[in-house]
């Protein structure tokens, strides 16, 4: 039977949770890098024991850590993220030009076919790639060079590139998302990029349907249907059936369509999950009830999943990188909260149980299914 390894990034360190395929009894290992913010960890699909981690600190900047033994030991690798050429400016909160400045790595996306290749989404928004296991990093500068860069602006969390989706069926194709610029697609392995925000509407913008400026929180894709994308925008849950060329809203009967996470069932590409959050100023579940919502119809029709989740006095948030699914049958769903809980469901969301309850605020959750 397959084992499962859950990689948890928190505000004060990383934790590695492991279980057999029953997913009922867990061991908790950590903290790794205690005291440091771990925005994200992710394992290589090629080598299950190769894991990359983003370690950062307001004092001491950015580190990239690499493990070759499944998270037992770690090695600091390259942390030089230099924008290509003269970085130029983007918009600041007040609308004035502001120079591009590296702040941190939000997301690491290992290559689908090379354990030494990994992408990094950074703040201020740009995409970098390493081909040597994280020792050195090179910007894929065509993204910032798209021409709309001077109009990008930070969301309240900073101007971050937080989502990177790789398409196994089309190696040249990649999707990324930036808060608050929107979603972009490349079809030539990152040389050129196209904004894919048609159909998004953001009423905080002077032009609510502008080409860029949308606060996309997360995009998810099922590998078997790479042209179908699901998006949790600042407000609105959206869907695209044409690789992002156009989007339509599928918020349907959700109690609120604000939120951060969105993910897709491992075996059912039309089954998707979100965690509704009350509003952009009230970052907690509506009515103090922590509910995952599942749609088996690719959106619009949603059911609340509550068994095992707190249904009163719960005021945690679930951040954008803090949900993941395993590849087992039945599909396991995992998410972490700012209250330090990591919840798991071993039956596609019908029943939930906390693996661990008192970690530092959880920033990211990833899952490895170990065959």
């Amino acid at each position, binding site marked *: 039977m397959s084992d499962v390894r859950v990689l948890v990034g928190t505000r004060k360190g990383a934790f590695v949770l492991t279980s057999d395929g029953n997913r009922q009894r867990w061991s908790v290992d950590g903290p790794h890098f205690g005291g440091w913010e771990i925005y994200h960890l992710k394992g290589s699909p090629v080598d299950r024991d190769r894991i990359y981690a983003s370690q950062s600190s307001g*004092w001491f900047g950015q580190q990239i850590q690499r493990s070759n033994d499944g998270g037992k030991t770690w090695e600091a690798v390259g*942390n030089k*993220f230099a924008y290509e050429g003269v970085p130029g400016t983007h918009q600041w909160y007040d609308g004035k030009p502001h120079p591009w400045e590296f702040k941190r790595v939000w997301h690491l996306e290992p290559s689908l076919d090379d354990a030494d290749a990994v992408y990094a989404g950074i703040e201020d928004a740009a995409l970098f790639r390493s081909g040597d296991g994280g020792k050195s990093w090179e910007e894929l500068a065509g993204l910032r060079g798209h021409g709309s860069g001077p109009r990008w602006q930070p969301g309240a969390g*900073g101007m971050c590139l937080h989502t990177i989706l790789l398409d196994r069926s089309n190696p040249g194709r990649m999707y990324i998302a930036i808060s608050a610029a929107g979603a972009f697609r490349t079809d030539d392995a990152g040389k050129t990029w196209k904004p894919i925000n048609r159909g998004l509407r953001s009423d905080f913008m002077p032009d609510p349907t502008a080409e860029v400026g949308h606060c996309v929180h997360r995009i998810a894709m099922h590998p078997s249907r790479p042209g179908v994308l699901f998006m949790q925008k600042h407000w609105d849950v959206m869907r695209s059936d044409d690789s992002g060329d156009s989007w339509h809203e599928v918020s349907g009967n959700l109690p609120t369509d604000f939120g951060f996470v969105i993910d897709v069932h491992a075996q059912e590409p039309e089954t998707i999950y979100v965690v509704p959050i009350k509003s952009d100023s009230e970052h907690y579940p509506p009515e103090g009830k922590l509910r995952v919502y599942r749609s088996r119809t690719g959106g619009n029709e949603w059911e609340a999943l509550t068994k095992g989740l707190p249904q009163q006095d719960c005021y945690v948030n679930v951040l954008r990188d803090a949900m993941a699914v395993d590849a087992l049958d039945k599909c396991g769903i995992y998410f972490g909260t*700012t209250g330090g809980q990591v919840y798991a469901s071993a039956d596609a969301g019908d029943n939930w149980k906390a693996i661990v309850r008192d970690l530092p*605020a959880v920033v*990211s959750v990833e899952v490895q299914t170990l065959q």
Partner: protein
Amino acid sequence: MIRVIIPGPLQALAGVEREVKLDVAGVVTQRSVLDALEAEYPKLRGTIRDQVTQTRRPLVRFFACGEDVSHDGMDAPLPGEVASGKEAFYIIAAIAGGLGRGPQDGHPVALGGAIQWEGSASMSWVIWASVL
């Protein structure tokens, strides 16, 4: 031999003790000390000064002989007592307070006020309020 005091989180990162000793060629300045430090311990690259701009990180400060020399410039000679090894060169991390951002949700997080003190060989001390 230059003596350098390393802040706690960087001791763990680089696998070093609180005090490290370095050979520094030529004039002893912030830059030459940091160059020698990073050459000896490459994992410290980017932690004390920015990898690209080579400027000191905002929440890191330098002290020598009980004085804050953070703003003296990277190429200003450090005091003779530091150059001779009688006094240590202190790299200090703020007990930072003020306003930080919560990761990934963009909500401001109040971290509280801040006081930092650090004894030196001459028992001087520093109070430092900082904004993250």
